[in-house]
């Protein structure tokens, strides 16, 4: 006889954070009973035990209904997602012109990349690059058909890669575009343990697509949490029937999943990008990384001190999480979001998502308005967007459920629990500086709130989670807010950060002087945590 469990655990184990959640069957549906996040390196059973015991202590009646007793949570079934550290791929091409789209595609597909072209790199250096112990795959590509500047060098490139493939039979070789014609250079593939894979050519200015999908398949094992976020986002889009973007800033990579519900009976779709260079704190932060973090920092540290702190953040990501450490984390998170945005340019050509869900360990200890502000500072689009937080980190474990119907049913049960609403941001673009842009009236369950809109700042309306309202905007000039116009009536919902009318520039303009920049960032931050209007 099989007894169906009344409770189970989800575990999202990453390189920096262990996130556990307790899911229980309550009144015929699955509900989130409790959750906890701890630094990686802690004992997983101890973490689960503490969470279970807290749930038992908080509501003994519910615990009894779930057949949960003190110390018993460690025996519950587990649904696990694990973030695997990205591996390294050598990306090679005949010409410099051909290498850029290949690097752009591989770098957003779960791989750390090193690259070289026959045109610009010494063959000895290319051999050294391919033989490095850390390199576990090679992407060698050409146009389809190869361009004139590639053709004369392709033969030697194939000979070089084939020689390394013979020496390192474990190496995965991906031949893209015109390189597939040179398969004969690789000899008898049947005797080779490492795969040799045919792939379509990379597309210039479009780093997503079939090649990216293939590279993600090769990069991440099926149970990987980054990959499961894609499936989780798709289930969420189906359940909510809305365009959903999931944005994760993790210890080893940043992930972006854009999901669309099925339209007209068609299947839902998802585009997934996993960008290792968008990790919170890269292992060896170069000047560009440090300067970017410095640009978002209100701390005023010089480059060397900032680099030291970023190295410490890499070594012990949960240490120093209070005070200045919290500020540094949010600056590093914004810088990582910027890198994620840059490696996924195709997102800019899509309609803005209805809901943006933040996930990842970096947000675990940040206040809700701060998280929403960090997202909207970087991922700026004119329009109206709702922001939410996967606060219990259960989206990736749910995404790892292999059966899509079962996954969707589970997400449907848990949708109210898994998302903590951060708030709604209304971001108009095209206002004139130096004078009032108009006014907004918010009519909600708690009455009416009227605001004058001064460009350059943030206006906060207190709208609690779950509350719905209508915001009626009257601008003096034509602005862009989804469409172009002067009068808009928008349905908005509340959140932990309320309703925020973001009257700053799109994209954001920050002063060059560090002290002025710090003051401005501080002022924006403060305006969201002080008492709101309404």
């Amino acid at each position, binding site marked *: 006889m099989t007894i169906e469990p009344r409770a189970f655990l989800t575990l999202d184990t990453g390189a920096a954070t262990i996130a556990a959640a307790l899911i229980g069957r309550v009144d015929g549906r699955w509900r989130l009973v409790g959750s906890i996040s701890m630094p990686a390196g*802690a004992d997983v059973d101890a973490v689960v035990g503490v969470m279970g015991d807290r749930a038992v202590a908080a509501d003994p009646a519910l615990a009894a209904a779930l057949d949960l007793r003190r110390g018993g949570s460690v025996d519950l079934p587990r649904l696990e997602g694990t973030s695997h550290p990205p591996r390294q791929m050598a990306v090679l091409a005949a010409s410099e012109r051909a290498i850029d789209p290949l690097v752009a595609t591989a770098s957003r597909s779960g791989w750390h990349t090193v690259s070289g072209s026959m045109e610009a790199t010494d063959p000895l250096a290319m051999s050294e690059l391919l033989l490095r112990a850390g390199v576990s795959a090679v992407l060698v590509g050409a146009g389809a058909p190869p361009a004139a500047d590639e053709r004369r060098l392709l033969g030697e490139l194939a000979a070089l890669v084939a*020689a390394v493939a013979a020496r390192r039979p474990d190496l995965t070789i991906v031949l893209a575009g015109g390189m597939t014609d040179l398969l004969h250079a690789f000899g008898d593939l049947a005797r080779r343990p490492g795969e040799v894979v045919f792939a379509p050519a990379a597309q210039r200015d479009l780093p997503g697509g079939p090649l990216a999908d293939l590279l993600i398949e090769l990069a991440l094992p099926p149970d990987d949490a980054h990959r499961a976020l894609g499936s989780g986002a798709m289930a969420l889009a189906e359940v909510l029937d809305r365009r959903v973007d999931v944005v994760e800033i993790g210890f080893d990579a940043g992930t972006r999943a854009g999901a669309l519900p099925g339209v007209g009976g068609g299947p839902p779709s998802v585009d997934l990008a996993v960008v290792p260079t968008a990790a919170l704190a890269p292992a060896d932060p170069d000047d560009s990384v440090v300067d970017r973090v410095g640009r978002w920092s209100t701390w005023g540290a010089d480059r060397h001190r900032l680099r030291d702190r970023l190295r410490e953040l890499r070594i012990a990501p949960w240490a120093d999480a209070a005070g200045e450490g919290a500020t540094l984390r949010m600056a590093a998170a914004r810088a990582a979001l910027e890198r994620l945005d840059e490696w996924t340019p195709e997102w800019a050509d899509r309609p803005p998502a209805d809901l943006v869900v933040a996930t990842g360990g970096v947000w675990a200890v940040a206040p809700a308005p701060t998280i929403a502000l960090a997202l909207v500072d970087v991922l700026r689009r004119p329009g109206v967007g709702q922001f939410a937080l996967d606060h219990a980190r259960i989206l990736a474990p749910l995404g790892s459920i292999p059966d899509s119907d079962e996954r969707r049913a589970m997400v449907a049960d848990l949708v109210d629990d898994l998302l903590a609403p951060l708030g709604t941001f209304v971001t108009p673009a095209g206002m004139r500086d130096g004078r009032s842009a108009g006014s907004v009236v918010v009519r909600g369950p708690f009455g009416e709130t009227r605001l004058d809109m001064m460009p350059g700042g943030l206006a906060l309306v207190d709208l609690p989670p779950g509350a719905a309202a209508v915001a009626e905007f009257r601008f003096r000039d034509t602005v862009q807010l989804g469409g172009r116009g002067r009068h808009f009536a928008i349905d908005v919902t509340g959140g932990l950060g309320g309703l925020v009318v973001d009257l700053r520039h799109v994209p954001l303009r920050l002063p060059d002087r560090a002290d002025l920049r710090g003051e401005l960032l501080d002022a924006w931050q403060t305006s969201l945590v002080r008492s709101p209007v309404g």
Partner: protein
Amino acid sequence: MNADDVRLVPARRLVVAPVDAAFELSPGDRPMVSAGDSVVVGAPIAERLRDPRFDETEVPAAADPHPGGRWAGQSRRGQERGAGGELIYEWHGRWRVATGDVADVVESPFAGIVRHVRPGTAITIRAAGRGIRGIVALGGPTRGRLQLGTDSELRSGGLDVGSAGTILVVGSRVDAETLTRARAMGVCGVVVAGLSSKERRDFLASEARQRAALHRLPPFAVLVLDGALRRPLAGAVQAVIGALAGREVAIVTDPPMLVFDMPNLVIPPPPVDFVRIRGGSLAGREGTFVRAIGPRRFTGGAHLEAGIVHLPDGTDAAVPLGDLERFV
């Protein structure tokens, strides 16, 4: 104390065994050992080319040329043999050979057994002994007698020639000038808790300049045990290092580690509830973990899971669990 509570504190291994250390090779470098070989301390394991280059040559089929194979070069009339090296790939009937004029010998800094030899990539040797893991090691593999230095920051003026041939433990922090002077005075290596990014960059630049010179440099390495900020060495690590003082140890870079071969050295595990504070205002202090107290509000409004730590001065402190570490 609840025994489960302390398991919430991130654990760090005090001593690691076995130790598999990799010695990086580049195309053209010549391994001098094979898998399964037993090596002693100081045994040559590879020849590393100082300025490798590619030569093109015809190799007769009778020589069974293949990628990764060695080519000794053909005798020329009235001359020594031609340029030899590592065969890399064949193109239009001619082989590209990685070769060079000057090679340095790489010696094994510890005794062990060769596990893998991959020409052009690395030699992996399993050390006879155990290791203390660091964050990063700069320089190359080295060995020497372990000498305890100052507990705080070592200045260049504090070095003397009596330290030649040693691996010096210098405490909380060191600057690039001291490292450069230590190398010049014959010190074989330095073990330090923290090395800032600026000192790291300056030291690496100095190393690069010296390596560009023609003469061979003696092996030297800097092993950083904790991070980039100033903090004292952990008490548990200090205890092991204290027991190793005066003994031959090695520093390897991949993984960054201090390796020692003292089978009779008994290292008692630290008390289960012994924790070290590695971040926050109490960074560097150590104490006894009392219990977990759940989420607490800390500076800046951050809500963090915390625990009570009893400090040696008799006080108790609530510390975020993320700021703690324990040794196992």
